[in-house]
């Protein structure tokens, strides 16, 4: 297993799934499916992002998305579709909506953005948990005993590291990305 993020591309047109794999293959571990059922078979906890066509015979993209969420997968899902967005998408739990036709650079941008959000989400959750642990210890223990504790020191280090990583992520994104990020985080 590589350490590369795992991206699952789903499109009933085999060439489209194939091209997505080609465009992203250098930087991501790619899986491809040409139907909803096959997509669900390829889903597991290691998948970071799903690129999902909406209009497919058999299980539609919308149905696949619902099943992914029902199964509790917390991966990012981008609908990649030629279907004009209508109000019905409000209730669909996806993370991004990409209109076809999409070319290599637009697809790579969308994928990078979503995976950045995923990393940010992940660090933010860890930072929150760490901060809560620090707060719990501080309310129970005396300052002296905290000072003596190696565990407490390690915890503070970890919190600082996470904070640094988050700051770095924010700084590495340009204005547009930050805006989109917060729109996504709002959902």
């Amino acid at each position, binding site marked *: 297993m590589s350490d590369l993020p795992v991206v699952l591309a789903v499109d009933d*047109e085999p060439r489209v799934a194939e091209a997505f794999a080609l465009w992203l293959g250098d930087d991501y571990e790619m899986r491809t499916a040409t139907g909803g059922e096959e997509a669900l078979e390829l889903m597991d906890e290691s998948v970071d992002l799903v690129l999902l066509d909406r209009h497919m*015979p058999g299980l539609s993209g919308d149905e696949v998305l619902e099943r992914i969420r029902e199964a509790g997968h917390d991966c990012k899902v981008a609908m990649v579709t030629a279907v*004009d967005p209508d109000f019905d998408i409000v209730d669909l739990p996806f993370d991004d909506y990409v209109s076809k036709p999409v070319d290599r650079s637009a697809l790579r941008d969308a994928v990078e953005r979503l995976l950045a959000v995923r990393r940010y989400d992940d660090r933010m959750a860890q930072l929150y948990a760490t901060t809560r642990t620090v707060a719990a210890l501080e309310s129970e223990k005396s300052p002296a005993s905290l000072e003596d504790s190696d565990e407490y020191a390690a915890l503070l280090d970890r919190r600082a590291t996470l904070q640094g990583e988050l700051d770095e992520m924010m700084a590495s994104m340009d204005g547009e990305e930050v805006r989109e990020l917060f729109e996504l985080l709002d959902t």
Partner: protein
Amino acid sequence: MASSDPSEEAPVSTAELSGLVQGAELFRSLVENGSDAIVSIDESSTILYANRSVERVFGYEPEAMIGERLTMIMPERFRGSHFDAVDRYLETGERQLDWSSIQLPAEHADGHEIPLSITFEEHSYDGERVFSGIMRDVSERVAREEELQRQNERLEEFAGIVSHDLREPLQTAQATLAVARAGDEDALEELEAVFDRMEELIDDVLTLAKQGRAVGETEPVALGDAAEAAWSTAGDGTASLSLEAPPTVSADPERLRALLENLFRNAVEHGGHGVTVTLGALADRPGFFVSDDGAGLGAVDPERLFDYGYTTDDGGTGFGLSIVADIARAHGWSVAAGDSEHGGARFEVVTA
């Protein structure tokens, strides 16, 4: 030049005109016979005068209106506010409405509403304040506006579907090209099919745009001959057409052929290899049916079948049966889909 000869100045024509005016024949005739309905009321909204055109617009003889309240030609919901507005105007001179050309519905003697464009005038007659309304029936204009609105909505819906249906194969073409560039040259062969599909879509959309219009001249068309002609383009090598006493219908021949071609193409594409397509007269009503011995509609929703862009087949454009429905509608016919007794699909076109 004219000033040098005073005898050519207005006096002659003025004299003629004043003769007419004095007799008031011209104006009476204009008011009586003009196409606008004119109704005059007093301060209590009692009708003092109605011209002949009120009969055409409201369905009442002028004599039946004189002496009645104006509210007789108002829809119930406006009656109260009418009296309030008149009272307020008489008291304060304040107008509730624009008096020059406003749009309000009136109520016809038979109860239906008529959209009117109304101009109000106030004048005095015998020392009384008299109010007149000059009312034009704008039903046709309103109907045209509504039709335009419907067409715009349809166009919008249409544009959405077309853009979707072209963007999908465009994505496939782009992807296929990328795969070919990466070394799989065989992928290039597939591009032709993708482009064919886009071309077919554009042809269908153009046909639909043309067929959606009202039909022109209709003439008696022998359905059997029309079917043979349509089959020559829509049929394929393995399928066969069978005619069962096809009737003669009154139709625009070119549109009828397009309708049949699309029904046949649908039957051939969905009926499978060696399908037999039958065209014949309806037993109980004027019209005809096209049925096949293929797989039938199956899980397809017959309601959605005629929608723009609806297809169960990846290669189809989803416009064929929309064309059928539009041509039928343009002739004033109705078309419905169901399963045939032989297990295939059956389309019925009722021509009356």
